Structures are given as C-alpha cells and as structure tokens.
C-alpha cells in the first residue's frame, strides 16, 4: 500500500528521473524528512563511497508535516556523506522551500551522479528539469533569485542556492522570519553537504507547485493550532506537561542508549518542524528544543490520519538514529575522529555490539537493511 507522497531518483549525469511512491510501511517506520532520508541513504549509497565522487548521493527531503498548518515553513533536510567527517551528515534549511517541494509533487529527491556543467534543478508540479546556468554561484542571492524566477519558474518559486564567500560555501534559501538574506551575515555550511552538492555541479534547487496537500481533519487542525497560538502568552511553567518533566534522560533500545534531546531533534527533522514560526516552549508546542510528543502525535493525526502514540514516536526517532550510527560504524569510526567516536563507545555503540541481525536489526524493523549495513 502506498501514499500520495513520492520519491524522485535523479541521475544528474544522464539527466534521467525515476519516481517511486513512498510506501505506507516506510511512512509508518520513518515518518518522513530525515527519517526516510536516512533509510534511503543507507539503501542507496555505495559502501565506503568517496564524498566528493559522483557515486556519492545527496538526498533533499521535506518534513512529514512541511507545508501544513503545523509547519508551513518546515525545514528541508539535505542528507549526504561528507568530507568534513567522512560520515553521514545533514544540513537543515528553514523557509518555505520544503512546503513548496511537497506541493511540487515530491517528498524526497535523491541526487546521484554529477552534472556536466553547473546546473539548477527545477521541480515543478511533478516534473524535474535541469537548467544550465553559468556563473550562478558567483551571484548574490537576490540576483540568483531574479535570474531563476524570471527564466524558470515564475515569482512563486522557492529556492535553495549554494553561495560562495572566499573558501566557504553557504546554503542560501528564500528567507523568512529572522533568516538573513545577506551572505556576509550567514554561517558557513559546517555539515559539508554544500560541498557535496557543489561537487555534483548542482548550484541551486528551485520548486514551484500547485498540488494540494490533503488534510485529514481540516476543522480539527484549525481549532488545534488556533488554541496553540492563543497559548503563546501563557507562562511556560503552568503549561508544561508532566510527562515531559518525568521523561528519563536517555532512551534504551536494542542498539544501546540514546539521549532524549537527540530523540527530540531527530523527530523534529522527521516532521520538518524545525522552524515553526512560534517561540519555543509554547503551550503544547512542538517547537525549538521543547518538542512535546503528545502535541506531535496530535498534529500527525489531525494532518495525516496516522495514529501514533508517544512511545511509537520515540521508537521511530530511535530507529533513525540507530540506522545513522550503524552506517557510520560501517564507514569506520576511528579513535582519531574524536568526540563522536567517544560518544558512541560510551553508549555501547561498537560494531561488535550493534551490528547483529537478530538482536538489533529485527527488533528495530530495519532487517531489510541488513545486507547493506552488515
């Protein structure tokens, strides 16, 4: 059984696009956003791939709730293996791009190969096209935007561009809220994903779409979000649910322990609620560092009809973290790689302890990755 959500597999070298539906099983196991992206990356990326090579893949994903009333500006997540650490890395780009990508017809775009010349990828109402735009990377964001909007997709298009300032590369997106539009004020991309895209000769991603996103309970979600907004001014301490206070600091699972903070961050990246437009810690707010599991479950149910409880949400986030760590273990965590390796070992994450099919892969419901990650 499948949903309306789609994955595009793009071969940049051949300019070919294949599309697949996101199966219901995939949705239930990983939701969307970084969750499905991690699964796809483990499934598609070649073993021990060189991050700068054409064989490396980069996945652009919209969050599970991106473009809905719960996350109209939900973050787009870019996942790849990068040269910065030699491991799987992610870059989150806030703004309306993710929602527009969903309205353009795709939840996840998997980029393979390397384009011959500097290319802009255009996603528009279920189609993916490639446009060669020489010198685009050297222009400022407003110039890039003007060029791309005029020549390609019109004024409603949303963009993510790679910009260069000295030796640093930046992700520049159509901004909102407090996001800066000026490259001098922006933080360089530390994840290294911008380098991967640059190595693939992809200098910009542009989306424009008119596809309607179905809402399971329109009246319910309006009432819910309205109530949430009205609670912004109420003091945080009075509204903080007791369940969050009682939460243990770590979550135990078949592959060792994971911090609750990391579980929350992963879930936010799966849902695309990184940039919700609301201050953190609002009443029932799934936002910022204060993700509330019950609020997240309510929003998923009202928007998509998928009924999940708090434990299931934690299980999904744990599964996504486990996949990433198992992938990183295979790619080789060495002592010289510093803190990440230390953290892994402290939590019982060693190749000997974790990479076991019956004890780890089967209970985590990722047994289909066994042949790829063993």
């Amino acid at each position, binding site marked *: 059984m499948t949903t309306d959500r789609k994955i595009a597999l793009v071969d940049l070298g051949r300019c070919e696009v294949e599309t697949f539906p996101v199966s219901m099983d995939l949705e239930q196991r990983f939701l969307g956003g970084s969750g499905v992206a991690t699964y796809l990356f483990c499934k598609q990326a070649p073993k021990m791939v060189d991050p700068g090579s054409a064989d490396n893949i980069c996945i652009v994903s919209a969050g599970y709730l991106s*473009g*809905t*009333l719960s996350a*109209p*500006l939900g973050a787009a997540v870019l996942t790849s293996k990068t040269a910065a650490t030699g491991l799987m890395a992610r870059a989150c780009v806030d703004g*309306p791009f993710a*929602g527009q990508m969903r*309205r353009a017809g795709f939840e996840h775009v998997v980029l393979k190969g390397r384009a011959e010349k500097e290319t802009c990828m255009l996603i528009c109402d279920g189609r993916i096209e490639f446009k060669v735009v020489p010198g685009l990377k050297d222009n400022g964001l*407003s110039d890039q*935007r*003007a060029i791309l909007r005029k020549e390609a997709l019109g*004024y*409603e298009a949303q963009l993510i561009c790679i910009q260069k300032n000295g030796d640093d590369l930046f992700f520049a997106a*159509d*901004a*909102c*809220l*407090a996001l800066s*539009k000026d490259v001098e004020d922006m933080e360089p991309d530390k994840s290294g994903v911008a380098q991967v895209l640059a190595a693939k000769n992809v200098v910009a991603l542009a989306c424009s779409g*008119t*596809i*309607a*996103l*179905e*809402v399971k309970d*329109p009246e319910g*979600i*309006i009432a819910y*979000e*309205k109530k949430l*907004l*009205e609670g*912004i001014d109420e003091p945080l301490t009075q509204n903080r649910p007791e369940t969050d206070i009682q939460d243990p600091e770590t979550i135990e699972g078949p592959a060792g322990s994971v911090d609750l903070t990391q579980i929350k961050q992963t879930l936010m990246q799966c849902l695309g609620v990184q940039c919700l*437009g*609301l201050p953190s810690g609002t009443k029932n707010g799934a936002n910022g560092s204060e993700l509330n599991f019950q609020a997240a479950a309510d929003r998923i149910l009202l928007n998509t009809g998928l009924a999940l409880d708090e434990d299931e949400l934690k299980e999904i986030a744990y599964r996504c973290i486990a996949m990433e760590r198992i992938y990183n273990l295979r790619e080789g965590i060495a002592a010289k790689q510093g803190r990440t390796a230390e953290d892994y070992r402290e939590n019982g994450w060693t190749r000997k302890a974790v990479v076991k099919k019956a004890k780890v892969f089967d209970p985590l419901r990722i047994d289909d990755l066994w042949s790829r990650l063993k």
Partner: protein
Amino acid sequence: MTMKILTSDPNKCNGCRMCQTACAILKAGVCNPEKSRIRVIEMDECDRYLPLVCQNCEDAPCIAACPKEAISRSYDQVVRTVIDYNKCVGCKMCLNACSFGTIGFDEDRGRPFKCDLCGGDPLCVHFCEPGALTLKDPTMIQYDQARVSALKRTAGMRR
C-alpha cells in the same frame, strides 16, 4: 452591521504564510496557497512581504464587470462584496477587473472565489502571530497611520 477593513502591515509581516495555509484549509479543506483567499506577495526589491485580500471596494470593478450581476454588496454582518454562485457562470471577468488581483479561480469547481471576511471574524487575523493583519474600523485607519507618522516626527523629543 459594521464596516470593517482587513489591513496588512508589510513592516510586521514575516512571510510565515500561516494566514494563507489556514485560509486554504478552512475554505477548501486542503493545504494549497492557490486556494487561499489571502495572498502573501514577496517583494524582492524591498525585502518585504505584503499580504493581500479583497479590499471590498466602494465602487467595486468586479461588480461592474460581472455580466450576470452575481457580485453584490452585502450588509449582513459586515459590509463586503459577495459572489452569488447561483448566478455566477465562471466567466472570469471579475478576475480581470480586480485591481488588486485578489479574486482567485477554483478550477475544480469552475468558479471564482474571494475573501468574505469569514462573516466578520477572519481566521487569518487569528493566525497572524506577528500582528501584521488586523481588522479595523475604516475611520480609525487614518488615526493609526497619523499616530505612526507623528511618533516618527517627534522621535527624540522629550517633555
């Protein structure tokens, strides 16, 4: 019956598009800005966003342009222009006539749509967290703008 105008402040709008999404869900049951009665226009030239809705013009061009007299002034809860879908034939003349481009066309139903101020309590105002959208008495708009102007002119002055 009261006369109210939905006003938008580009200096406060942060482009979050909550108003647009909420409106589309309420009126069409889907997340699609194309179905929203409010449009957030991004102005690259000045780095601002401007939410636009039907201004319910006194001498409305859409009323004059409609060959079937399907658009009229309504004075029930608030003063507004409304479309009578029993008379509308979907000719799109009103879309062309509107000076603000705030009348949309629903291709699924084959008919135009416009803001009806949600019967006097617009949902977009509730969802505008930065307070860029407000429903105001038209006689008070000039005082609000005059006050902003006066504050700018007297900045730095002390009693």
